[in-house]
């Protein structure tokens, strides 16, 4: 339990009414199911990310699914599954995507040209790798960062001034 949540619960005990920003649904069914759902959604998101460069899917949609999973976790448990500030993902993702495009450009080929090839391993059989995956990973990071920042900004409403009707 995060100290923030503990503090909120203490306040709740005193004030005995929900505080703004409270997300303590404390529903055991939701908690249990959300754990399984979180894992499933994350797995599916990673699958979409993995196959995205050549089939339906991709970094954007995978990022959105990840954001959905993380918001579900947040709603069920009241604290963030990430220990990092999601805003930090955005510049790194952008830099990764840009670099993926820039490398072939600086080597004299088309901007964003993807390299690809085929690897056969005993475990997986033949599969295709492509540098477009790195680009997708960058997009994924940007979407996760942006989506989570938006969602958290909306969740953590802490009114600082009283308006009429508040009392």
């Amino acid at each position, binding site marked *: 339990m995060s100290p923030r949540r503990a503090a909120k619960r203490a306040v709740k005990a005193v004030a005995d009414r929900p505080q703004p920003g409270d997300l303590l649904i404390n529903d055991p069914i939701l908690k249990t199911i959300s754990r399984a759902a979180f894992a499933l959604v994350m797995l599916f998101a990673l699958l979409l990310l993995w196959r995205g460069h050549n*089939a339906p899917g991709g970094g954007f949609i995978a990022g959105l699914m990840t954001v959905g999973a993380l918001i579900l976790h947040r709603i069920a448990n009241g604290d963030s599954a990430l220990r990092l500030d999601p805003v930090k993902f955005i510049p790194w993702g952008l830099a990764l995507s840009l670099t993926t495009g820039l490398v072939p450009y600086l080597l004299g080929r088309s901007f964003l040209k993807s390299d690809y090839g085929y690897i056969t391993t005993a475990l997986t059989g033949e599969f295709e790798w492509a540098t477009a995956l790195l680009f997708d990973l960058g997009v994924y990071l940007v979407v996760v960062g942006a989506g989570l920042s938006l969602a958290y900004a909306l969740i953590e409403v802490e009114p600082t001034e009283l308006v009429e009707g508040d009392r």
Partner: protein
Amino acid sequence: MNPEVGEVITSALPLAPILTPLGLGLLLLLPLRRGWRVGLALASALLTLIFALLLMNATLGGVLVSELGGWKAPFGIVMAADRLGSFMSALAALCGVFTVWLMAAQPDPVRERHHSFALTSFLFAGVQLSFLTGDLFNLFVAFEVMLVASYALAVLGSTREQLREGFRYIVMNLSASALLVVACGLAYGTLGTLNFAHLAQRSAALGPNTTVTAVGVLLLIVFAAKGALFPLGFWLPGTYPAVPHATGAFFAAVLTKVGLYALIRVFTTVFGQDPQLPDTLLLVLGAVTMLYGALGALSQREWRRILSFTVVGSVGYLAFGLGLDSPDALRGSLAYLAVSVVVTLAMFLIAAVAERASGMRLVRARGFIEFLPLLAACFLLCALTVAGLPPSAGFVAKYALIRAGLEGGTVLAGIATASALISSFITLYALLRVWSSFFWGRHPQGEPVRRVRWPERLPAYLASALVVALAVFAGPLLGYARATADELGSNGYYILGVMGEGPLNLPARPKGDDVQEPEDGP
């Protein structure tokens, strides 16, 4: 190359002015010391200018195309630079250099901590992308990149005035962007493509068609809102004075011209089939906008509010020139576009120095010719250029426009020409009044005169020197404008330059050991 040869010239160059500010803008997000940031931002602006000039030189020989990911024109996304695009790109890059310089000369720790340098860099990237992109949807993307950066810059600092004006700016531009997406969707639904050259080919094959005309008018409304034509430009004179001097100068000089560029691109290259309705609309809107800008300038008392209204007026002249829809008018518009960008930049830089020197935004102090004689001369020169009086480049460009208007022949063209002449005189009066009430007369005792350091003054002088240079080299400028207008007028030039000749061939499939069809999931 000659367009007759029918080969597409692919080159890496059209991407360079876009990627430079984008990449270096990302580096500017790193926690660096101010000196490094200033250096990086200046380097990014200068490099962009160099690439844009190289591109301008290269497009003398034909349309340059950059294929993203190596996919050919109608299938993949391409950047295409012709004379018009590269010229605009160079003008914007030039303004960018001055902007970064003034930002460096006016330290602003709060805004810089919130990444004003990086945002400016992204703004440059968005502007360059909108000038060099080869398709309608990426034009929308470019507008969004540019606008998101400009939203942030417009409200960065969160003064009450900025938030109030920024809100109007954001709401107006968001609704225009939504309309732009609708127009993209309609265009794709009707013509099945979004590439400018392919759109032009297909709409020519379709012939005059009401849906295509509707898309054209929708795009006209969107770009009129971005370019601040009369009924849709109400946000402009409030927003630009509220932002800091440096970014305000860039906003004023370039952002409205992006909308105008899009108008030129769409109505010369893409939808040239049925020009009657858009032309009439442009003439009417242009005529009203000119008068609105001139009268607005007359009604204001603050430096940058007056100048913002002259920006609105200049947009009106450009719409007027476009609406005349003749090669001569297009030549005049393009020359006026260049003059207008440079002179607006110079005016806003002069206003920055004047506001700093007098310590207030109102044009009230008198007698500043004693303290800043060179600035007084520069302002007079720029005022003559904006109004379009003889020894200036503004005269050359406006003369070309007015003559094209008189040759237009229709009643509407006549009315618009009269409006252009009248609003020129009103603008002249408004600006001369600024000159006489700020520079002329005796400075009142007790009013403070702040010293403005030379790094802040120099950009104003240099930009004014550029205005002089435009007057001196008016011949080459008009020649370049003529060549650009011819290029835009010969419809096949851009299309062949982007699409090449011959039938469309589907690109070869990638050669792997075994390429399999994508499956529908496990």
